[in-house]
């Protein structure tokens, strides 16, 4: 495969990718369907922001956010059914059951662990130390500015954590498992080795049921933008949306079987962070995964980082075995 030159890099030499918005297919069907899948994303984002902006204090709580999050995912599962991006990414019973296993572990076991050593402890420490009167300069800002700053700072951290995972072997090991997914569906974001899920703080919970409104608004950014990273729905995302925000197109390229393509589009919600640091590639891929698209079983996903890590340690530091046949270099 020749690949396509993007800046200094050749993308798509190992697996097919589509580069450039003009080459990406549009939603097909009648005018109502096309309008729906063009406007759904911005309408959902602005509706959520308006809801959290105006919701009375009695319902502006984390538990409401969790409820809305679950409802939104069910709705998106319905959209996957109606308007799939690729037939080859269709959700099957086995895929659904596998994905839900990881969602379940995130909601339960990781949450329990987080209570001891993870994000919950950190949040509690921060909340104990942080007196809101000392943060008046921040809480006095307009709510949407606060919300954007919270979401941006979080995503900025995620960007570098994610980029680090792709560049430093000890972090790559737990993250690599997530790259064995061979299709994108709504719960695929939860699929990965629990060590990674713990590292990036996917464990649900953390905040008190009382949450400053700005955090709920910031969560709305994550939910109404970041969710589209893993989904099998074709949208005609508006030009401004795909310039600012991460899309399924961007993230499918990140999951491509082409190595160079995976080293792009690291941000969770705000793809302009990738644009700032020169790692953004606009395009999409259908063939996803590692090792030519080998689907990893749950059992292997649980053990892979440890077994691979052990293998590497042995290769590097282990005593050479004299009965081994001499290694033949590949080239």
């Amino acid at each position, binding site marked *: 495969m020749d690949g396509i030159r993007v800046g200094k890099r050749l993308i798509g030499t190992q697996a097919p990718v589509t580069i450039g918005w003009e080459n990406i297919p549009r939603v097909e069907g009648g005018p109502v369907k096309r309008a729906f899948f063009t406007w759904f994303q911005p309408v959902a984002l602005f509706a959520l922001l308006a809801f959290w902006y105006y919701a009375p204090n009695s319902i502006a709580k984390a538990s409401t956010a969790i409820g809305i999050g679950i409802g939104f995912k069910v709705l998106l599962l319905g959209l996957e059914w109606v308007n799939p991006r690729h037939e080859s990414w269709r959700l099957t019973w086995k895929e659904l*059951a596998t994905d*839900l296993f990881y969602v*379940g572990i995130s909601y339960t076991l990781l949450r329990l662990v987080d209570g001891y050593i993870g994000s919950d402890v950190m949040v509690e420490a921060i909340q104990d130390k942080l007196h809101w009167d000392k943060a008046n300069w921040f809480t006095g800002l307009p709510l949407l500015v606060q919300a954007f700053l919270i979401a941006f700072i979080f995503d900025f951290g995620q960007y570098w954590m994610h980029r680090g995972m792709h560049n430093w072997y000890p972090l790559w090991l737990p993250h690599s498992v997530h790259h064995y997914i061979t299709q994108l569906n709504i719960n695929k974001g939860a699929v990965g080795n629990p060590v990674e899920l713990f590292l990036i703080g996917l464990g649900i919970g953390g905040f008190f049921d009382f949450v400053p409104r700005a955090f709920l608004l910031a969560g709305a950014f994550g939910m109404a933008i970041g969710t589209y990273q893993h989904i099998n729905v074709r949208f005609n995302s508006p030009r401004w949306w795909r310039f600012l925000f991460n899309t399924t197109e961007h993230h499918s390229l990140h999951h491509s079987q082409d190595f160079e393509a995976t080293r792009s589009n690291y941000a969770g919600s705000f793809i302009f962070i990738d644009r700032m640091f020169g790692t953004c590639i606009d395009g999409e891929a259908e063939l996803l995964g590692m090792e030519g698209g080998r689907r*990893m079983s749950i059992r292997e996903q649980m053990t892979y980082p440890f077994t691979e890590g052990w293998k590497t340690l042995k290769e590097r530091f282990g005593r050479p075995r004299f009965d081994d046949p001499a290694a033949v270099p590949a080239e």
Partner: protein
Amino acid sequence: MNLRLIDWIWHVRGTLPLAPAQSGDDALDRLAPLFGQPGTSYERASLDGAAQELTFTKKDQAAQDKMSVFDGGTLRIEAGADGAVLRYHLISRALLFCFLAPLLFLGIAQLTIVFDPHKNAPTEKAEKTKKADKKDEVVQLNPIDKALGAPAPEKPDKDDEDGGKGGSGKHGKKPATTPAYVFAGIFAALYLIGRILEDRLIRRLFRKTLAGE
């Protein structure tokens, strides 16, 4: 204990009549392409009499493999009372896993109770926070937000009461076991759906493949 009494949990069995003129060889020829998927290996053998058998195993089967839910099994063409029949026996670890998953989540619920991180949380600390909260001034809204009509924030000290009542708050008395119970329920339902759905889908796939559709 006779395993057969419980192995229906993850074993799918069934029979399909062949068309009157269809030979065993022809039937297996038609079914064989189903096993040409990545990670699948199969063998065909002629048994005593006219019976024929195809045995397969799968490893790391692709998500879109139509038989991805099965890890192995046998398909046998046998003589039945009304002509030849396809008798299949398929084994699915995914179904077994899904059947056991509710137990896993019930176990996690018990773990949540035993290892509740807030069980021994010092109440003194909670009270201190409460007092501190009461001292805190109510956060003032930015004038822009006031003008746009956003509700003004309340004092955050209500949280501790919420936690006590609802049990989901950080300082609540009860550990949050609800998600684990919900997922146990989800997997019980998923198992029932999967056991019925995958049984029907594989039957339909074999029927259509045999008919050459």
